[in-house]
């Protein structure tokens, strides 16, 4: 089902989404009934105290994690019912992940890290290499293509991660505390990159603890104990 003009607001929708873990006989509800929808092209900041379920929410929205109950509709398709392979395919074609601790593969060069999604997309070496250069230039790292992650600064590593997340030209960028390990100045630079992507029409879902960072997003979701605190959220 293709999104029509009318249900654009329904592009990404969670309906009574629950994610529970059983920890030594005790149920932990990482998500305790979340109902929310995100529109195409939105830039959301997701906030809330530690352990409130932000990362869990990101993993679910990124099709990496499955719900215990409830529905996750992407383009009207119930993702939580799909097989592991189909969810991998969705991640590969539509989603770009950015993590707090960068998550680059240490033994691969910057170029190879950026090319990784293209490898799984089946691109040939030449095309991938051109694309990787282009992306590295976009994040300002053309000089570092043949370095390994360990030789880069935190900010540079996160830029490689962003370049990698962009390689498959995703519709949705899921960023879990992308500036969490960076100083304020570097964090601001990364945020500027994300804002730029937002201006290009990408949907950005970003977890952050810092109000300064969050204020750059147009919408804000505040989570407490696995639920959305609508009073503190801001969805103009």
């Amino acid at each position, binding site marked *: 089902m293709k999104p029509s003009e009318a249900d654009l607001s329904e592009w990404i929708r969670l309906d009574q989404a629950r994610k529970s873990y059983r920890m030594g006989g005790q149920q932990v509800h990482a998500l305790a009934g979340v109902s929310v929808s995100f529109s195409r092209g939105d830039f959301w900041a997701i906030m809330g105290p530690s352990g409130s379920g932000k990362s869990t929410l990101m993993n679910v929205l990124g099709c*990496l994690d499955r719900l215990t109950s409830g529905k996750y509709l992407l383009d009207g398709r119930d993702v939580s019912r799909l097989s592991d*392979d189909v969810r991998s395919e969705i*991640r*590969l074609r539509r989603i770009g992940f950015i993590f707090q601790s960068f*998550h680059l*593969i240490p033994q691969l060069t910057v170029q190879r890290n950026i090319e990784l999604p293209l490898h*799984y997309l089946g691109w040939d070496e030449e095309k991938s290499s051109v694309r990787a250069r282009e992306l590295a230039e976009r994040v300002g790292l053309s000089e570092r293509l043949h370095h390994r992650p360990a030789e880069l600064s935190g900010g540079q590593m996160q830029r490689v991660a962003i370049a*990698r997340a962009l390689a498959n030209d995703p519709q949705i960028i899921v960023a879990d505390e992308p500036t969490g390990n960076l100083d304020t100045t570097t964090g601001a630079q990364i945020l500027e990159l994300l804002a730029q992507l937002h201006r290009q029409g990408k949907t950005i879902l970003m977890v952050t603890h810092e109000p300064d960072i969050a204020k750059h997003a147009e919408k804000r979701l505040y989570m407490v104990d696995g639920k959305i605190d609508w009073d503190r959220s801001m969805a103009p």
Partner: protein
Amino acid sequence: MKRTRIVRNVSLGVENLLLHKLRSFLTMLGVVFGVGSVVAMLSVGEGASQEALEQIRKLGSNNILISSIKPTEENANSTNPSFMSIYGLTYADQNRIDTGFRDIRRSVPVKAMRKDSRLGGRSLELRVVGTTSAWFDVVPRQVVAGRVLLPRDQTHRSPVAVLTEFGARKLLATEGTIGQSFRIGGDTFEIVGIVRSESGQAGSIQVPDQEVDVYIPIEVAQSYFGDVFTKRSSGTFIRERVELHQIIVEVDRTEAVEAVASGIGTMLKRFHKKADYIISIPLALLQEAEATKRRFNIVLGSIAGISLLVGGIGIMNIMLASVTERTREIGIRRAIGAKKMQILVQFLIETVVLSTVGGLIGLGIGVLIPFLITYFSGMPTVITLSGILLPISISLTIGLIFGIYPATRAAGVDPIVALRHE
């Protein structure tokens, strides 16, 4: 398109293994030695069995050799100087063999003796064999010069002699010697030919011409020298009467060899009160050699199997450690969109590359060892195509079998847990 994808995956696997050169090398050592020993052992085994086959071929696989032996109890009585021991095969025996059995192509009588001989100024003892022209059909040897014995030599009772290479060497006879006369015992013979001779042994059976210097027609041998021989042994003379020292029987068909041999055995038993003959069958040696080779292959197979098993387990062990070490990498790849199957293939390829490269190095060592063995000990070794292809396919299979488990573990990694993994 599909092939380039496989090539790319393999080259990525190789790249990753090259990051840890020492570890990768140590990991494949088990397979290196496993395959190396398989290749080396196969070639030694093959060499031994081909050597045995060659010896048996020299003896003739369709032949039955019946030899006279002195019965053991005779020796005790030989203190009497006028005593003469009579034993062995007779002309009548050969006649009965020739007429009594189907499936026999020809039989060759052999009368062996030692005679003082003289050619020009050279005088020495020769090992003389009286036989028929059929000898040269049953024991085919290349003619170096002149000719072999012919049926007309027998009918004319011609005093002709054919030298073997051994005899020619002793007498210093060459091509130019053909046509010359020389003396055997007190009689004059004409040298008509020189034939190549072979030596060697398979099991307890000697090549028939191993101890022959000269052939003469058997009729001539009998009428000139008789059937009684005097041997000197530790100061006393021993007189023996032996009509034939050996009868070589050539059977038509290989399948009939055993039946004919046992028939001859039964027949001889009827006419000989003493066990003064022995029947040997080269074909039985062939079967024995094959049985030995089978046993050898089983032992070899078990040793090789165990060492390859150990090698495979070694690889699996390291790959399992590698999966744990690279959990986070697996999580990252999965988050990016890699399917379980792609992770499985990635790790499987690494294992197969390890075991196959190990197999190739092992092959190199396994080819070198037989070469050195042959060079230093002279033992024959043979490397066959299957001796090369078998270990390679085994090492590939080892990689697949022992790679499956670690690769499945890698594919089964939960990406959420993996990404938290530090």
